[in-house]
């Protein structure tokens, strides 16, 4: 069988590319870490050689101006048609942390058809960088209807680590927030251990409605502030908890879902 191919797009200041690559490879994919300069200089439709696109965490271009802003503009200005086509074809796309910020700021989330920025990720309410583990509640509807292809087979509440200074999710207006809820686009919310509404620090950034991750209506584009690539093995958990089988962490399931989806 042909192996699933993943493109990890990196730029100056990208950090989490190696561990994200490892996570996809562990799930059976073939991964290329490609610098934006070489994607722009290379053949025009190089992106279509790949099945999955991942925008990893980090501080692209130093997060100058605002987190993810410069890379978002660069992709939108220089790759606009191709990236939109890639997304609308239904290819899985994931943006983690800085990648989520890029997806939101170029408008691929929450609505790639619109392709305009209608939400943002702003400074944490605590006004500082927060590196900690959180509980994430998987929205029931999404789970049942399998709207988001990335989050199947997860229990109601999982743990993942966050590490960001600008993670407070805000929509442009109430209408957009309502439509996100209505369309089952909210994938993860920060929660307590029992799935209830948390206070700081379990909601580490003050996101509206404790939103930690969202997807597009179709469910192929997924953006989240927490880092699933940092919980591939049980060993990475602070208390070494594992998912169903002894060795792995819940983060692995997320990458596996996308690879399985393509297959």
């Amino acid at each position, binding site marked *: 069988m042909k192996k699933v191919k993943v493109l990890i797009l990196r730029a100056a200041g990208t950090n989490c590319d190696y*561990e994200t690559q490892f996570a996809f490879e562990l799930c059976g994919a073939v991964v290329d870490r490609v*610098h934006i300069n070489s994607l722009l200089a290379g053949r025009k439709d190089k992106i279509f050689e790949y099945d999955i696109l991942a925008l990893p965490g980090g501080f692209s271009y130093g997060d100058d101006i605002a987190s993810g802003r410069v890379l978002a503009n660069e992709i939108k200005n220089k790759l606009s048609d191709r990236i939109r086509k890639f997304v609308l074809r239904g290819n899985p796309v994931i943006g983690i942390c800085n990648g989520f910020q890029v997806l939101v700021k170029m408008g691929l989330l929450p609505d790639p058809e619109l392709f305009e920025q209608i939400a943002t990720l702003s400074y944490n309410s605590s006004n500082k960088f927060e590196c900690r583990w959180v509980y994430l509640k998987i929205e029931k509807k999404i789970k049942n209807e399998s709207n988001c292809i990335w989050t199947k087979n997860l229990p109601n509440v999982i743990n993942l680590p966050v590490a960001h200074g600008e993670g407070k999710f805000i929509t442009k207006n109430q209408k957009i927030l309502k439509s996100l809820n209505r369309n089952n686009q909210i994938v993860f919310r920060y929660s307590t251990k029992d799935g209830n509404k948390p206070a700081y620090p379990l909601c580490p950034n003050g996101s509206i409605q404790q939103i930690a991750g969202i997807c597009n209506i179709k469910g192929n584009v997924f953006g989240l502030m927490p880092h699933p690539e940092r919980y591939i093995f049980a*060993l990475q958990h602070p208390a070494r908890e594992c998912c169903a089988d002894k060795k792995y962490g819940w983060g692995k399931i997320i990458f596996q879902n996308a690879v399985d989806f393509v297959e």
Partner: protein
Amino acid sequence: MISTNDCKVIKIFNLSDDQLVELSKNNALYLSLVEMQAIQCYFKKLKRDPTDVEIETIAQTWSEHCKHKTLTGPVDYTEISPVLSYKNSGVKKDSNSSHITYTTVKKRYDNLLKETIFKATVELNKKWCLSVFNDNAGIIDFDSKNGVAFKVETHNHPSALEPYGGAATGMGGVIRDILGVGLGAKPLANTDVFCFGNPTTKISKIPAGIHHPKRIMSGVVSGVRDYGNRMGIPTVNGAVYFDDGYMANPLVFCGTMGIIPKNKIAKKVVSGDFILVVGGKTGRDGIHGATFSSARLESKSDVNAVQIGNPIIEKKVLDAMLKARDLNLYRGVTDCGAGGLSSAIGELGEKTGAIVYLDKVPLKYDGLHPWEIWVSEAQERMVFAVPPENKEKIIEIFKKEDVEAVVVGKFTNDEKLTIMYNDNVVVNIDMSFLHNGVPRPIRCAVYKIREEKVQKPIKMGSSEILKVLKASLSDLNVCSREWIIRQYDHEVQGQTIVKPLHGNGIEVSGPGDAAIIFPYTVVKGTKKGIVLANGLNPQYGKVNTYKMAASAIEESLRNAVSVGADIEKISILDNFCWGNPNNPEILGSLVRAAKACYDMSKAFGVPFISGKDSLHNEYSMKGKKYSIPPVLMISAMGIIKNVENTVTMPLKAEGNKIFVLGVTRNELGGSVFTKIKNIKNGIIPDVYPKESKIIMKKIYHAISKKLIESCHDCCEGGIAVAISEMAFAANKGVKIDIDVIKTEKVDLLTAVEILFSESNGRFVVEVKPDNQAEFIEIFKGSIFSEVGYVMDEKRVIFESKKNGIYVQEKPEVLLNFWRSTLTGG
């Protein structure tokens, strides 16, 4: 040579001694008279006067920061010790000590470093030490294909003047040390240790001309955060120590550990190789940083000596250079740190010679004099030795990642340093004079060993003990560092499997002893891990620098062993931060600490692999000079065979047994307890390496056999604090019987002293009842005892039936005391 607008010839032929000193002072060279005379003499031989570029080059190369003149120089050492030794017990020393006689021992060191620290490493001769004390970092064996490199630097003076920029570039600088070791290592983790004044000091009490410690702390933490986080390197281990001796002269230690293929450890610069300067442009920032580190801090110290950092440029250099490394495109590399291009090119070309065209160096802006370009410490620059045939290829690799790379000259075979600027020769001196011409004056050192007295027996009731326990937990030097730790991305790269804060879930957190990196993304299929830990206790050094050094070494080892490190596979790094070494007593205290380094390194069998000293940590206020309390900060790095066999410190399950391993002695000198109760006397904890090492070996054995559920070392605050931390980190109860804790002699210590003594060599461990027999079998022959158990009920209880003591508190209450002191703000 002739003076031009850019480059001046400095007439020194006929200068008197006074004028030489004046010249050094006016140009911020920080060279002594003897050194200036050596320069004068050299140029008389050349029959010409030097240029300003030449003088600056020599001053930079000979600076304390680059040359470590004190530690590698000759020292006449005199040690004065009291005849009546308090050693071993400090038992019955309540006799009046005014009639004590002293003995004097003298010793001449030709090279202090080589005869103490380095000597221990040579004598230990560990096969797994791959590169020690001769590159930008020490390297030890990781597996058959890879080594791991570790380096810790200080950036004290810059951080005093400009806390954010100083700390950020401190981090950036030590990361470049790792990029510049061998042919370049990939950084896997950062460490940071700080010493500050008390952050709660009233503003009115802060002397003029210095920043408030709170401002220094928040600036330094932000600086390390912004550089480390943006580089994508997790900051996983560290410490903060508060003492008002660091009010005007804070200490900032930054460390980086990286992994390097074994076939990339050797550099070989060949005549004819191009000199390629890569990364940031050169500007006027950080001029005289190297020489400035020999200066005393004053209220008018020059902020221009502080560098300006840009982590994203360094990240681009890192990404691109590792590609070039793996394609074998260069033969040598080093970082531009203190002394800038002068230091980097001078070092790489020491054996060959080099010619440099300064006008080719990319500049941030016009108007720099040649000497400024040459010694500027502008950040994020690396220098490569590139074979001519690879020039285009390597420049192309950097260009693809938007990194500037420019050939500025080449390595020659004339063993001279030649520098051109706009077709004029501005430097032409011998490499041998530059690197070996510095005079080696003999320095005087004196150390008088102070007599220590046991405090009067301390007795307290239960409620007072509880009060002291709470005060200990919220003491600045014990309390939670969570406010700092969570601002650092300590999990980027995904490899931090033992984190700085430990809990049994994700919410409750206690202080971990050490961090473990599991480099699974770099070394595919490995099971091995790298443990990082540290130790320091400046409080002990105020009385006895030997014990301070010995305790710091043991503490770093205990921390590493507590998470599962093998004591036979640990290496250590020394960082000396001392006052002015021209003062014989200050230098004497340093010699005494260096002796402890030798003794402990040998006794524990742990080699030093790298180190750094920062001397001249003194400041003047209202005309008076003050030196900092000396610090020896020890960083430990160990290799763990199987990352699955590692433990954290929170208690794990009800019904498990608690053991204390090691002997509790009457050693409250310099302790948190005596500080809280304002007790002046007390014996400073000593180190008993034979006893300790056996226990450490046994712990490793027991952890490998999965017989230990949790483990925590006893340090500041003693057993009481250690056990409380293990309980509140897990939110579990524990009951401890003070009467069965093993002391050196029965009834020698009161219950309070047992709880709060800070004796070295002790661990608290948790063992499942099922494993108890096997566990005890392993520890047979060592001193240890079962002292209690983990309870269903959520209460921490310390009981002494003998003394009618029953101390109890909820773990969450203790947690809050520990958590509420340092909250940023």
